[in-house]
């Protein structure tokens, strides 16, 4: 799906080469200085995910959330040299695979924040596992990722299987519909989520349809939905299609409640649909809404509001930094630290199962305001 020109690849390779050269320089410094100052808290963490390209928003949300954690850490530990290197995959599994080799070969890196997407997690998981390099993802939610037996893979939010059942319960108990129509976008994510909701709702589901990614005209599906006239429509898929779909449903005269998952929780949904059509939409997400102290600090550091997965990025980075502070400055110690991590954090109490899933998986409901803002309602499980 992502086309790229050769020149960008060269540029990325050049930047990465520059970074690793710079890193070589700092290694020697830190080795010599650490012996003199006796500090054991110097470490490098890699961020793997998109910071440019079509999916850059999500990567930037996470790394900006992580920056808040870094600032906190710097204040309380001014002597530590804690370094974060960014590896921009543009969300492309193939690029991420090449970057993973660079990360593994850089001996300074003792942990990876990421990968951001399920696709790149899948393409890089084996390499990280073989290198014994621990990864903590703040956003990859494909359930299959923890079935490969990788001991290094972790994620700090519930997978897609944890999102479907609460979404279905919310629809059943809060919206109390007579009929629910389920549409998915035939993608692995969208169909997976749609099927879970469909099975959980059982006889409430009156009909269903599958659309395609990249589709822009939904007239036949609109006809089908209007013919069935459900109270609630659940859409499993991503925001570009969801936005155009709800717009055409509203234009066609359907007035029921539109519900979708985290793939739709993006300002791009409101842009594609228009605030009028998007208003009232309910979105479920394993991601926490940013509030309070974190919100204020994030705004101050990054100059804008936090986005989806910013708090998760903060928590993931915190795990590494607490590990470094506790003296875990090589790969195997850091892996043990993450595997045994058991603490309260911003988004939830974090403790990992042996597969790398987080044990607590809160799911939240969000709503689109009439002015187009996506605001948190409450936890739904």
């Amino acid at each position, binding site marked *: 799906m992502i086309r790229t020109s050769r020149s960008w690849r060269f540029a990325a390779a050049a930047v990465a080469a520059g970074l690793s050269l710079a890193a070589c320089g700092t290694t020697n410094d830190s080795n010599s200085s650490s012996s003199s100052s006796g500090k054991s808290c110097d470490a490098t963490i890699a961020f793997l995910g998109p910071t440019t390209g079509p999916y850059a928003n999500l990567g930037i949300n996470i790394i900006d959330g992580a920056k808040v954690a870094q600032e906190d850490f710097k204040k309380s530990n001014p002597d530590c040299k804690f370094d974060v290197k960014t590896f921009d995959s543009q969300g492309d599994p193939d690029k991420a695979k090449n970057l993973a080799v660079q990360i593994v070969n850089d001996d300074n890196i003792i942990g990876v924040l990421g990968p951001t997407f399920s696709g790149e997690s899948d393409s890089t998981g084996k390499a990280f596992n073989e290198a014994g390099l621990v990864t903590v993802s703040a956003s990859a939610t494909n359930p299959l990722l923890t079935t490969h037996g990788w001991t290094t893979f972790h994620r700090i939010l519930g997978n897609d299987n944890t999102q479907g059942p609460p979404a279905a319960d919310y629809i059943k108990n809060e919206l109390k519909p007579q009929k629910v129509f389920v549409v998915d976008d035939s993608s692995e994510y969208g169909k997976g989520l749609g099927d879970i909701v469909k099975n959980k709702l059982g006889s409430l589901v009156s009909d269903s349809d599958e659309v395609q990614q990249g589709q822009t005209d939904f007239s*036949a599906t609109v006809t089908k939905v209007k013919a069935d006239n459900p109270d609630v429509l659940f859409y499993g898929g991503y925001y570009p299609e969801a936005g155009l779909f709800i*717009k055409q449903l509203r234009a066609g005269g359907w007035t029921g409640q539109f519900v979708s998952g985290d793939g739709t929780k993006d300002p791009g949904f409101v842009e*594609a649909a228009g605030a009028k059509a998007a208003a009232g939409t309910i979105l479920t997400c394993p991601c926490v809404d940013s509030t309070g102290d974190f919100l204020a600090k994030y705004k101050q550091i990054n100059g804008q509001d936090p986005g989806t997965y910013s708090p998760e990025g903060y928590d993931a980075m915190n795990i590494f930094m607490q590990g470094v502070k506790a003296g875990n400055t090589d790969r195997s110690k850091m892996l043990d630290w993450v595997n045994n991590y058991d603490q309260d954090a911003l988004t939830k109490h974090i403790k990992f199962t042996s597969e790398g899933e987080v044990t607590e998986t809160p799911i939240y409901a969000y709503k689109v305001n009439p002015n187009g803002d996506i605001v948190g309602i409450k936890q739904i499980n």
Partner: protein
Amino acid sequence: MDFNLLTHHFFELTITGIALGSVYALVALGYTMVYGVLRLINFAHSEVFLYGTFTTLWVTYFMGGTANSSTGAIIGMLLVALVMSMLVSGGVALLLEKFAYRPLIKRNAPQLIALISAIGASFFLSEAMGLRDRIAGFVGLDDNLSRYVQSARDTRSIAFEIPRKNLFPIFDYTVNTTDVLVIASALLMMVVLDQFIRRSRMGRGVRAVAQDPESAALMGVNSVRVVQLTFWLGGIMAGAAATLYMIRIGATKFDAGFILGVKAFTAAVMGGIGNLRGALVGGLVLGVAENYGSAIFGTQWKDVVAFVLLVVILLFRPTGLLGESLGKARA
């Protein structure tokens, strides 16, 4: 399989299918005309359409459209957008001819080379649109143009909702203003173009070159002019299609041309490539077939249905439904 939906909502599916097919048909004209004259498939034509959609988008921004714009203001803005999109798409088509084809034709390059050049131009134009934020950054205009270039790879919507009124019922469906506008404009454009090719002096030149380029040149037809005219006409039709598409869908994206281009090309082949009326028939048949296919088998099957139909049609009529070439159209 569910025939219930089709039988109960036959007219709704048909009319929305025709509206969808009208856009296919207008874009298909560009493929079919260039093929008729040059025996060349202009794969970059989808991007000629794409630039039209962005022109419409930007005109609504530039003219200060908001969610509260009055209906009169919206109609005015759409008219300006229609003219501008036709001009921009026509211009892009002419530039394509100048830089991607003429140098090759001059050197008598094989058709395959021109095809590759077209695919290259298609990628170039689409990616340039997808990287418009960075291009604006290079020239230092990204602050002034932020609304036009931001989220360069995301879907962008026009500045207002298109107001629509229900007009009159046809059995199970109430036709609305958007349907009428899209279908009527598309048909009008097609008729004008068809008559222009059939009756005007320049149209006769186009037909002459399509029939026999060498004889036409001997008879004093300026074939370079004719090729330019062909590209330009295809471009302005794609520009009109782009505005109608934005009226229907309301949003575009840097890669929105690709799928629509494939569909329009299919429509051109289905109707008989090189045949203007064939493009219309092919577009409408394809649009309606997609809707029927969606209704009977589910939306995920619509392309399977449409392309099986294409294969079946080509099995029985290898030159497409109408099958007559541009050159042989009667004067």
